């Protein structure tokens, strides 16, 4: 199978006072067309940085230490800015947590969609095509929506418009960073359904970055679990949720209030806190919080590759 997007050995650091913060460390993953990859982890695990690196849109102060991001074979990290701009939107598109920030408040939705798609392909900027696209993402009365300003739409509608904008030029890869976090549950469910439908009808690869395990379970085919800048485990969604191998994955799944059924019982927690990314230990970063640690865990953990694209970064998973 040919992957649409391949990330290989990617490391990203931030310059901070007194050193460098290792936000993404040696991450390798790939997404196929028609596949939804979920990247899950807690705040500060580097998932948003990874998403930004995938479209080469890193904030100032970030620096790529090593690795590549290949979109249909082209390394995005090596492209000159002009070539990158023409790829963004057309081949790879992004949806943010708060779509309000992605729109210009003084222009109508129609005008912005037309500007955006017209810049790449004027033939696709006609009102009819734009309205058809809005209808396709479930916006009622799409023609009138084109006349509206961003602030006149609800959060859920704005997120739909943002998705429509991202899909206008039929990208090969769609990256969504916390696309449902700002929404109510009812709207969240609708956006999840929309994204699920779209990846089949648009033949594109989707990457979802979220901290919400429910969203991952509902939407994704494969999952990469991140901890302290590393992908500690990846594999098929069913395997990850029903047979987690990494102790962190297990702990994370166990403490989700939505999993624990017993009412008013105490919820399991993960003792300790996330390690300091400016001063990482030599061994496994999860060691201080791990309940099943071995003496070997003071050494860097091996990446153990298992069948069906599954991999675990843990001494315990070794042969």
């Amino acid at each position, binding site marked *: 199978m040919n992957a649409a997007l391949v990330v290989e050995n990617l490391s990203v650091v*931030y*310059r*901070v*006072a007194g050193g460098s*913060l290792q*936000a993404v460390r040696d991450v390798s993953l790939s997404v196929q067309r028609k596949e939804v990859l979920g990247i899950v982890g*807690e*705040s*500060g*695990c*580097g*998932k*948003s*940085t990874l*998403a*930004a690196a995938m479209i080469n*849109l890193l*904030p100032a*102060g*970030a620096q790529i230490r090593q690795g590549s991001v290949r979109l249909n074979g082209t390394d995005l990290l090596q492209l000159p800015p002009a070539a990158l701009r023409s790829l963004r939107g057309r081949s790879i598109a992004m949806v*943010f947590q708060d779509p309000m920030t992605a729109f210009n408040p003084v222009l109508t939705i129609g005008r912005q969609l037309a500007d955006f798609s017209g810049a790449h392909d004027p033939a696709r900027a006609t009102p009819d095509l734009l309205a058809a696209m809005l209808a396709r993402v479930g916006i009622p009365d799409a023609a009138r929506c084109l006349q509206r300003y961003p602030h006149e739409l609800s959060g859920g509608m704005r997120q739909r418009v943002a998705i429509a904008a991202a899909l206008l030029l039929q990208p090969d890869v769609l990256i969504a*960073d916390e696309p449902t976090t700002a929404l109510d549950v009812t709207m969240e469910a609708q956006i999840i359904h929309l994204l699920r439908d779209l990846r089949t009808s648009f033949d594109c690869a989707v990457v979802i970055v979220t901290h919400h395990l429910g969203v991952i379970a509902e939407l994704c085919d494969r999952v990469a679990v991140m901890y302290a800048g590393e992908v500690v485990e990846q594999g098929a969604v069913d395997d990850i949720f029903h047979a987690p191998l990494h102790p962190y994955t297990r702990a994370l799944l166990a403490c989700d209030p939505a999993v624990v059924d017993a009412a008013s019982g105490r919820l399991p927690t993960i003792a300790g*806190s*996330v390690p*300091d*990314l400016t001063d990482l230990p030599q061994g496994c970063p999860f060691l201080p919080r791990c309940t099943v640690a071995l003496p070997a865990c003071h050494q860097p953990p091996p990446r153990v590759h298992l069948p069906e694209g599954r991999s675990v970064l843990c001494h315990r998973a070794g042969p």
Partner: protein
Amino acid sequence: MSFATDDIALPARRGIGRALLGDPMGLAGLVLVSTFLGMALLAPWIAPYDPIALDVKAKFQFPSPAHWAGTDHLGRDLLSRIIWGARLALGISITSVGIAGAFGLVLGLVAGYGPRWLDGALVLVFDSMSSLPMIFFALAVITVLGPGTATLILVIVLVSVPAYARLIRTQTLSLSRSDYILAERAMGAGPVRIIFHHLLPNVVGPLVILICMDIPVVIMLEAGLSYLNLGVKPPSPSWGNILAEGYTSLRRAPHIVILAGVPLVLATLGFTFLGEGLRDVLDPRGAGRRWT
């Protein structure tokens, strides 16, 4: 898009002084302002001559070891006059913007957090005051009260208060809708506690910056009005007076205007730089988070 920093505890904020020293512009401002403040405070001890003592025989002297900056048309020592001038310029400007700042702060807080009718009344007053053209307003007040240091201070206070009060009012209005003010009200905090404990410390930063940026304007205004003989009365060694008197003998002794102009320019730059530096440093959420 930003890298999520939620659960990374941040290092403690550096002190304002230390942060200012790390910023080249702030540092330059701090050095210049301290120099002028030093000159102003120590004028009686560091000025080599009496600034108003005449020595007509020694008039229009160029800089020399005896008179480092030369003398003016009445033979007064120019360096001494400039040093004493700093005392006048800074004295007037700091006093006036200080008084204006205090009034502006209180009026702005009251307008922003007080009852709606009071806000309406105060805004009307501020707006009508600032709709008067500043120069004509200043001239009118000087005509009525006569020129002099006190009049000058009064004019500057009257002109600055509405601007300061409006800045504070806007800040107060937006903060009074913030979560933490709501939280204080939910705990039962009264208006006095909210205004003095929770609003004042958060609105005063921008005011300090504005005041700092205003001091050069006031120094210029003082110099300008004194130049027109509407400010500080001669023979007081105001920078404006020195310039005005030097201008009459520009051809014969050009050094007077040049040397009296330099401190004016440097003081203006100093306060502006300091204001800019403070703006970078005082933003409570700015420091220490630059890499996000």
